[in-house]
């Protein structure tokens, strides 16, 4: 479904991705793990067009994405929950969710989608008229996920959805990711919380300073000696 080949990305003179390749198949949850500054966010931003690729290719359902502008990606069926949530603080919860469906025009489908998001995140329904800037961090994360789901995506990229959340909320967020998968949506999950991420993933890739250094089945990675030391703190 999504295939990245030899992707290189630089910020000026600094090369953040030094030729990474990975793929995400339909229906999978793929974990992309790595330490701070490994290049995880850079990879996601390049896939959805927020950053230009220097070389390499990104193919999504057979279409080359590297030349597609960012605003055309979501309509192709790819949603991105960015790092740090980035909800629109001056818009209400409901308005944010409607923004997620910006490229869609099928009113009935959108309201059905909205009901689905509300049933998944009851707290958003309660607070639908509240300004998003006044939501708690966890609620903002739910809103960012709900907003992405409003585009009814085939694949959803999530950048550290558990960042800064209490353990209970982290569990809640991971439960939701599993439900998203159960609904048939493919997930590319970037996480620092490697253990949790791998435990709900099918496969995983480990990124280290711009290179993929390890890949495999999630269950294998969870038992890998190297990973246990570096990322699971064991």
């Amino acid at each position, binding site marked *: 479904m999504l295939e990245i080949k030899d992707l290189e990305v630089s910020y000026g003179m600094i090369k953040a991705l030094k030729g990474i390749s990975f793929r995400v198949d339909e229906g999978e949850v793929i974990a992309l793990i790595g330490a701070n500054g490994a290049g995880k966010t850079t990879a996601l931003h390049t896939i959805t067009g927020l950053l230009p690729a220097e070389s390499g290719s990104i193919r999504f359902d057979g279409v080359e994405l590297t030349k597609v502008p960012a*605003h055309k990606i979501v309509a192709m069926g790819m949603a991105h929950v960015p790092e740090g949530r980035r909800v*629109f603080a001056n818009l209400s919860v409901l308005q944010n969710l409607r923004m*997620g469906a*910006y490229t869609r025009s099928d009113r009935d489908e959108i309201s059905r989608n909205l009901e689905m998001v509300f049933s998944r995140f009851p707290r958003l329904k309660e607070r639908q008229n509240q300004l998003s800037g006044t939501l708690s961090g966890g609620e903002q994360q739910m809103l960012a996920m709900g907003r992405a789901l409003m585009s009814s995506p085939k694949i959803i990229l999530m950048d550290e959805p558990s960042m800064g959340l209490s353990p209970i909320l982290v569990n809640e967020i991971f439960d939701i990711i599993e439900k998203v998968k159960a609904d048939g949506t493919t997930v590319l999950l970037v996480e620092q919380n490697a253990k949790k991420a791998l435990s709900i993933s099918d496969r995983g890739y480990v990124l280290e300073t711009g290179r993929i250094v390890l890949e495999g089945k999630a269950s294998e990675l969870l038992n890998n000696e190297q990973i246990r030391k570096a990322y699971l703190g064991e």
Partner: protein
Amino acid sequence: MLNFLTYFVNGISLGSIYAIIALGYTMVYGIAKMLNFAHGDVIMIGSYIIYTSMVTWGLDPLLSIVIAAAGCTVLGIVTEKVAYKPLRGAASSLAVLITAIGVSYLLQNLALLIFTANPKSFSSVVSWDGISLAGGELKIQGVTIITIITSLIVLLALQTFIKKTKQGQAMVAVSEDKGAAALMGINVNKTISLTFAIGSGLAAIAGALLCSAYPNLTPYTGAMPGIKAFVAAVLGGIGSIPGAMIGGLLLGIIESLSKRYISTQLSDAIVFSILIIVLLVRPTGLLGKKVQEKV
């Protein structure tokens, strides 16, 4: 008392014009994060278009305003595309600011070349004489009333557009976070273009009202109202639409009353002093809000 009222109403009218101009400033700032110092000169170009269409071609005033609004809209979109867009992202905000000042001089010199520096006497787009109250003691000119009504309509239309339409919501989204807006499928460049188009169209309307109230059109006509509208936008809280409206009105009233009660020469100085005082007390302006960010 009647005297006070006359000046007060005139102040509201002048303030309404500042408000319409300030709306353009504030919207462009909110979305493109730039101070478009050429905005005042768009007013001047719009006024010349109205003058040409009304006086030279003898067209209907309303039609002339429509032509000017269309012309300024195009002018706004083109300057953004040609002068500002190439600088977006890469260049420092200083480069954009200097470019805007350059565009301002370019427009003034263009007008100088085409229309010369001789003042054109503008005939009012409003033919209505107005009303007299208190047995003829208090006269309110037609153009004063029309100006106030127009600015109210503009404000309401703009608020409705932003709150109720998809495009308007896209504007809010772009003003907050261009990257996140793009992820929603919003074409950021188009949204910025649209903002320039709206701001410049409003400038044409402001030009029509301004020159109807002060019928002396030169290539420098837009400069001072432009600066004062900028002050109004900052006073109200730059980026805030109601703020621009309130800032504009306050500025107009203060200017008008200080001309009457303090000194004509000092009125501009007073206006700017008030700006400085307000900014010392409330750096974000009257309605400007601090951006709330949660980590």
